[in-house]
């Protein structure tokens, strides 16, 4: 399938994208149009963020823009510059679903989306637009405005329980690696298939939410799951690939039907003629739109780790974690580790931010040098999903540091301002276990919320 591409007619061959590609997938001579080696590409979209080679009236003429826009299936309402490196848009599928009276639309948006979306409407960098995004979804006509943050809380229940099982009962390989980031999972499957037992079996929050939409969501809303179109908005270009994986159909249907990036959501809002800046804040729908601060911090590096520790601590010790802000796991690009005291247990955790930094960690693991680690979080993009390939693209890279910092700050502030900051305290999480899932790692969870990984030789993505 096509996810990220470079348009040969527009590419100047500068190879600036090759410098940021964590998979060394961009090939070509300096000064010549580049191609993406799809056997290597993990579809993270960092090249899309980097590319500045735009369709120009000076270089390509006055008619070129319209031609490229049409070729890419981008709505006529879009006026912004188009670049050589781009992701394939699925906006028209979403528009069709919204316009079809026989289709019930359920939407979810990842935590990082709300830290970037407003930038596309002229705000300062990292301005929070969570409740405003919910209002935009409703104005667009989505029938159920749910939230990936709910599934992030659900992920913590499952992944936290899985970690405890692996650590205390010796049931499963250690260290356990997070599995939320589809580019990372793809990289692991392709390059270190012998290590995939180390990956958590948990699906990503997007896929958990999708599986829940068409089962529990259909049940409580008395809907035929076949009529549901499950739309997800992600800061990520790889999520479209993730949702199209053949095993992602736990509900009996494709769990997530279509993915838009944060940038494409902005297109959709503009295309519908909605004045985003004039929208009044609204709430997400219950119960699959209820979330805690722990769910929100999934958007930044170290966030999954911190959220897991907040719940894991309580599950293991039966006591509340003394300090809810775990600053030891926060930080920027690279590999960092910390020892976290959980009752009698010293939990050794590691956080990888930026996929390039995972290679030495995996090589150490293979060589038996990575001793004592229990849990390692890996995110492909520089500082986690807030810097994802589908996020608003900066016109000037000199603003990058400020953008990353502001989006990260907004994420932690939102967490701090929420009344509930631990996943297991989310009343709707309690409800879904009581009414539907029964228990973490139970039979239903196993079927809907967990997955398995490819172990064979590297698979070509076509």
């Amino acid at each position: 399938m096509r996810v990220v591409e470079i348009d040969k007619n527009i590419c100047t061959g500068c190879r600036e994208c090759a410098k940021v590609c964590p998979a060394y997938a961009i090939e070509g001579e300096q000064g010549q149009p580049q191609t993406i080696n799809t056997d290597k590409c993990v579809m993270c979209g960092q090249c899309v963020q980097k590319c500045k080679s735009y369709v120009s009236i000076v270089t390509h003429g006055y008619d070129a823009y319209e031609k490229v826009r049409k070729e890419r299936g981008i709505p006529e309402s879009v006026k912004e510059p188009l670049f050589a490196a781009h992701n394939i848009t699925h906006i028209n599928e979403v528009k069709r679903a919204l316009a079809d009276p026989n289709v019930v639309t359920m939407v979810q948006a990842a935590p990082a989306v709300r830290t970037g979306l407003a930038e596309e409407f002229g705000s300062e960098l990292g301005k929070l637009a969570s409740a405003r995004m919910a209002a935009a979804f409703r104005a667009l006509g989505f029938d159920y405005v749910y939230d990936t943050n709910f599934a992030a809380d659900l992920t913590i229940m499952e992944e936290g329980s899985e970690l405890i099982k692996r650590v205390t009962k010796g049931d499963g390989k250690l260290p356990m690696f997070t599995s939320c980031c589809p580019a990372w999972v793809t990289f692991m499957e392709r390059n270190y298939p012998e290590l995939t037992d180390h990956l958590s079996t948990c699906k990503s929050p997007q896929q958990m939410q999708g599986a829940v939409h068409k089962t529990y969501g259909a049940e409580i809303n008395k809907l035929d799951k076949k009529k549901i179109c499950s739309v997800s908005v992600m800061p990520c270009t790889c999520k479209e690939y993730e949702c199209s994986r053949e095993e992602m159909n736990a509900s009996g249907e494709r769990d997530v039907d279509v993915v838009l990036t944060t940038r494409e959501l902005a297109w959709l809002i503009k295309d519908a003629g909605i004045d985003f800046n004039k929208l009044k804040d609204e709430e997400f729908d219950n119960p699959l739109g209820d979330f805690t601060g722990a769910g929100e911090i999934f958007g930044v590096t170290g966030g999954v780790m911190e959220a897991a520790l907040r719940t894991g601590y309580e599950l293991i010790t039966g006591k509340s974690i003394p300090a809810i802000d775990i600053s030891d796991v926060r930080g920027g690009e690279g590999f960092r580790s910390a020892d976290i005291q959980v009752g009698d247990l010293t939990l050794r955790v590691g956080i990888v931010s930026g996929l390039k930094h995972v290679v030495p960690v995996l090589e150490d693991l293979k060589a038996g040098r990575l001793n004592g680690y229990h849990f390692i979080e890996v995110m492909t993009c520089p500082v986690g999903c807030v810097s994802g390939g589908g996020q608003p693209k900066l016109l000037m890279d000199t603003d990058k540091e400020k953008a990353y910092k502001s989006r990260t700050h907004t994420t932690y502030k939102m967490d701090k301002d929420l009344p509930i900051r631990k996943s297991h305290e989310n009343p709707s999480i309690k409800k879904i276990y009581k009414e539907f899932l029964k228990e973490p790692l139970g039979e239903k969870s196993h079927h809907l919320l967990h997955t398995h990984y490819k172990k064979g030789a590297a698979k070509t993505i076509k």
Partner: protein
Amino acid sequence: MSKYSRYVVADSSKCTGCKACELACFAEHNKKSNGVGFTVGTVEVPVTPKLYLTKLEAYCMPIQCKHCEDAPCLNACQKHAIYRTEDKQVIVDENKCIGCKDCVMACPFGAIAILPKSEKGTFKLQKDKEVVKVASKCDLCEGIEGGPACVRVCPNEALQIIDADCETLAKNIRAAEGLYASRF
């Protein structure tokens, strides 16, 4: 104050042709007039830079105005739309420019392009609905904090601001040092 106007020049051995300079140039010049923010989604008009990546077989570099001391464009402009500031920079007044292209003809470097004029996020139109096009060239980011955006954003530090006075002095010193060292 310098005796001469300053200008930006690119080093073709460092330039990769990424166009970050063109995009930054456009972004900085359209923040106020066209509501351009930090991200691509805030742009609603064609990208009209004031420097132009020039790509040849073996190398590439952006070409921009040298702010000539005896500026052919300024001398050629019959509408007095090109003027020199106190800092000696040569500037196009887009409100006076009629797009006659005399400056394009006069410039020996091709540093001027005739590009559409946008205001408040839309094209400015003439009576016959034709888009207004005016001369567009480097103004050395006059009035923009931090100086020329192209220099700031270049990922390869291929662009620099040249001050002819400093250039002469630095080269004089180097030549003197060379002569001094070789006297034995």
